């Protein structure tokens, strides 16, 4: 078990290293001078040089890469002076020369080229928003989806089944940006006097005189929009898995034993039918984190997706890299957890 987990973790680290290499060099191949992008329409030579020096763009690419990896690595070599200590917030392990020491620190993601804000603080601010959005969307999709799936499997080939099916097809085929605009327009604009919902806004509102106000209702529309697609898929998955399970022998046995139909459905059948659904949900969760961009954009919801794409348009390498690394990290972690969880749930999965 431990060997299995270590193997998976090593594999995950290799994936992350690959992401760093690919994204870093991809950014260097792409045309677009980050220094120029930070200077407006009339950059002069002195300013360009100053900016390049500040971001370390005046060095050869491989040197830049080495410095970047050094900044990212939790164990790294940095200057021993107080400025470097304040910048990286490290714990010194031991000196390697008169001015440099080997240190232990959090990965340093640098500052945005565009805003010169610390990337870690951008991520710290946007990630919880996206996380909450993705999580609530997932919970919404799972609860409603499993319920609808069970109902339509139990009522197979009735009008309930076919309308749930039609709904699922609609949900799968409507792209989230399209569904988002429609939902925002209907519930946030046309019916806003009745629903009391806003077209846009984040988790917190700020009153100029009263301060921060938690505005959970701003979560409702983005949550539904983002959850629509997984909801539709979960309905389909639950339905087919349920039908599969319901035709098994042990269900017939349970029926023969005289158990109530609710007990059979929810205790015996659903538990076994949920396996493929869990896989789908775990896979979907990571991609929801990454894929919530359109929803964030349409609803003006301040999340990771919005921050990333804004940065991408402006060649803001540190932000893009930080965001990609974070998403990759989440994917890796979730995959490791799912693999391990699988081994627990299903003994047939080999621990190798």
């Amino acid at each position, binding site marked *: 078990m431990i060997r299995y987990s270590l193997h998976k973790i090593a594999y995950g680290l290799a994936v992350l290293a690959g992401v760093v290499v690919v994204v870093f060099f991809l950014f260097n191949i*792409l*045309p*677009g*001078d980050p220094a*120029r*992008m*930070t*200077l*407006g*329409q*009339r*950059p*002069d*030579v*002195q*300013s*360009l*040089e*100053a*900016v390049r*020096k*500040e971001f370390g763009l005046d060095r050869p690419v491989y040197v830049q890469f080495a410095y970047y990896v050094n900044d990212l690595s939790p164990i790294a070599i940095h200057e021993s002076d107080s400025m470097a200590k304040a910048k990286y917030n490290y714990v010194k392990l031991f000196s390697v020369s008169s001015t440099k020491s080997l240190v232990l620190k959090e990965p340093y993601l640098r*500052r945005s080229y*565009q*805003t*010169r*804000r610390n990337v870690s603080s*951008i991520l710290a*601010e*946007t990630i919880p928003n996206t996380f909450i959005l993705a999580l609530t969307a997932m919970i919404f999709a799972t609860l409603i989806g499993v319920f609808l799936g069970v109902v339509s499997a139990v009522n197979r080939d009735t009008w309930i089944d076919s309308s749930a099916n039609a709904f699922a097809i609609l949900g799968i085929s409507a792209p989230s940006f399209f569904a988002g*605009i429609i939902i*925002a*327009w209907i519930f946030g*604009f046309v019916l*806003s006097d009745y629903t009391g919902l*806003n*077209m*846009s*806004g*984040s988790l*917190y*509102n*700020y009153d*100029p*005189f009263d*301060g921060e106000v938690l505005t959970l209702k701003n979560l409702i529309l983005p949550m539904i929009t983002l959850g629509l697609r997984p909801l539709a898929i979960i309905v389909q998955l639950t339905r087919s898995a349920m039908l599969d399970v319901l035709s098994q022998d042990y269900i017939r046995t349970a029926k023969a034993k005289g158990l109530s139909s609710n007990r059979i459905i929810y205790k015996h059948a659903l538990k076994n039918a949920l396996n493929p659904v869990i896989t789908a949900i775990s896979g979907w969760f990571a991609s929801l984190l990454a894929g919530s961009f359109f929803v964030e*954009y*349409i*609803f*003006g919801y*301040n999340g990771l997706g*919005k*921050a990333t794409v*804004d940065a991408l*348009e*402006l*060649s803001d390498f540190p932000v893009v890299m930080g965001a990609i690394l974070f998403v990759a990290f989440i994917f890796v972690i979730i995959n490791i957890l799912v693999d391990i969880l699988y081994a627990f749930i299903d003994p047939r999965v080999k621990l190798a």
Partner: protein
Amino acid sequence: MLPLRLLVVLVFFTMLVSCKQSEPDNRTVFTLNLDQGLSSLDPAFARNQYVIWMDNQIFDSLVQMNDSLETVPSVAKSWEISPDGKTYTFHLRNDVYFHDDPLFVGGKGRRCVASDFVYSFRRIIDPKIASSGGWIFNGKVSGMDAFEAPNDSTFVVKLLNPFPPLLSMLTAQYCSVVPHEVADHYGKDFRSHPIGTGPFKFKYWKEGEILVLLKNEKYWEMDGDQRLPYLDAIKATFISDKQTAFMEFVKKKLDFFNSLDGSYRDDILTKSGKPTRKYKGKFQMIIAPYLNTEYLGMLVDTNLAIVKSSPTRDKRIRQAISYAIDRRRLVKYLRNSVGTPGHAGFIPRGMPGFSATEVKGYEYNPEKAKKLLAEAGYPNGKNMPPITLQTSTTYKDLIEFVQGELNSVGIRCVVEVNQSTSLRDLIAKNSVNFFRGSWIADYPDGENYLSVFYSKNYVPIGPNYTSFKNAKFDRLFEASYYEPDNEKRYAMYRQMDNLVMEEAPVVILYYDQLMNLYQNGISGFSTNAQNLLILKRVKKK
């Protein structure tokens, strides 16, 4: 029993609700949306419109601009310029105070003095700060010692050479005064802890969500016997989807709205630029000149390999391109008449000294375009190699219109769409022959536009993206620095603009206009061709 309980609950709720409403709030909050986001509040990085707008509320400079683009006093109540035009002496007010901040002694904002300007101006050219405003002083002053404060109320700037636009350039937000205690303490993070002397003080900024500025009760500027500003607060949101933002404006959740986007343009405006019946009278609409020239640029330096092989090396072809485009139709159908057809020079309408009669550009004349083509050896465009026009995605519809116009006179034109970042890079490296560009005034002086054609501003040193070189132009350009009289200098500008138009390195498409929408209860707003947002005199009912 039940009805009684219900009654108690009802009474309780009514009390709750009435409690909330018992103190009527007369405080006014001006709301706006910044769809492009806000990269910083540090004036040293005031390189785009929204940073400029917000910095203009928080900070003051030596001088400020009025709606006719004239330089008027601000923190400096008067100034003198030495006869050689190289030394500017400013006399400062003594009643200007910084906003309160714990970093000041006793937490109270201290008085703003001349040495604060020395500090602030040095900060712009300090390579360690790497400000995007370095161009303001780079090449114009000898270095850090060009700024002096002989005493608390006198500030001196020494230039290497005369530069008449200096005063109007000093209205730029880059030249705002910042306190060294705060700027040094926060370093790079001064961007989100701005302290200035302006009419509003910084309160709260959750990036990408909400920015709140509050009234500076101790602001120095008066309107008659009323102390400015009138508003109690400004609240900015950051909805990137323009259509959503527009709907928020329609719902009156925003007091001000300014971006004209294709998705709802026809909803608000008729083709002749009037409000549609649907929105007539629903809000105030202001359409006015905006110092922005939309153009197509062409590389003209025949020493460049890329120019040698292109038909656009021939002046007649460039002129033919300019004659082939019907700008009136372009502005009417693609811009709903927001904009003025570009029939004069590179200096836009709205700029002091602009004259559509004295600077002659190109009007739509397809016959002349065909004639010029024939003279250049390509009758009806026969045997002429296709030319590639580069654009970014945002301007695709505009460029496709141009493509259609060129094709109809026989010039084969291929459109290549690039990401705006890469396109800027390609243009800055002289690697594209024919491209779309725009030039927004950094300061309201024609020199800002003409510097784009000065041969010493070749890329990568400066913004001469068309590699234009003309000895007569250069002589005039240099001479204009020694002409302190505005009218005489403007005449020189027009002469230079005509020289550029004759050589046709640029095709002027249109001079931009701004479209600002305000809710009906808003008054006291200002409209100027720099599109500077001035909120200190705004009132909200």
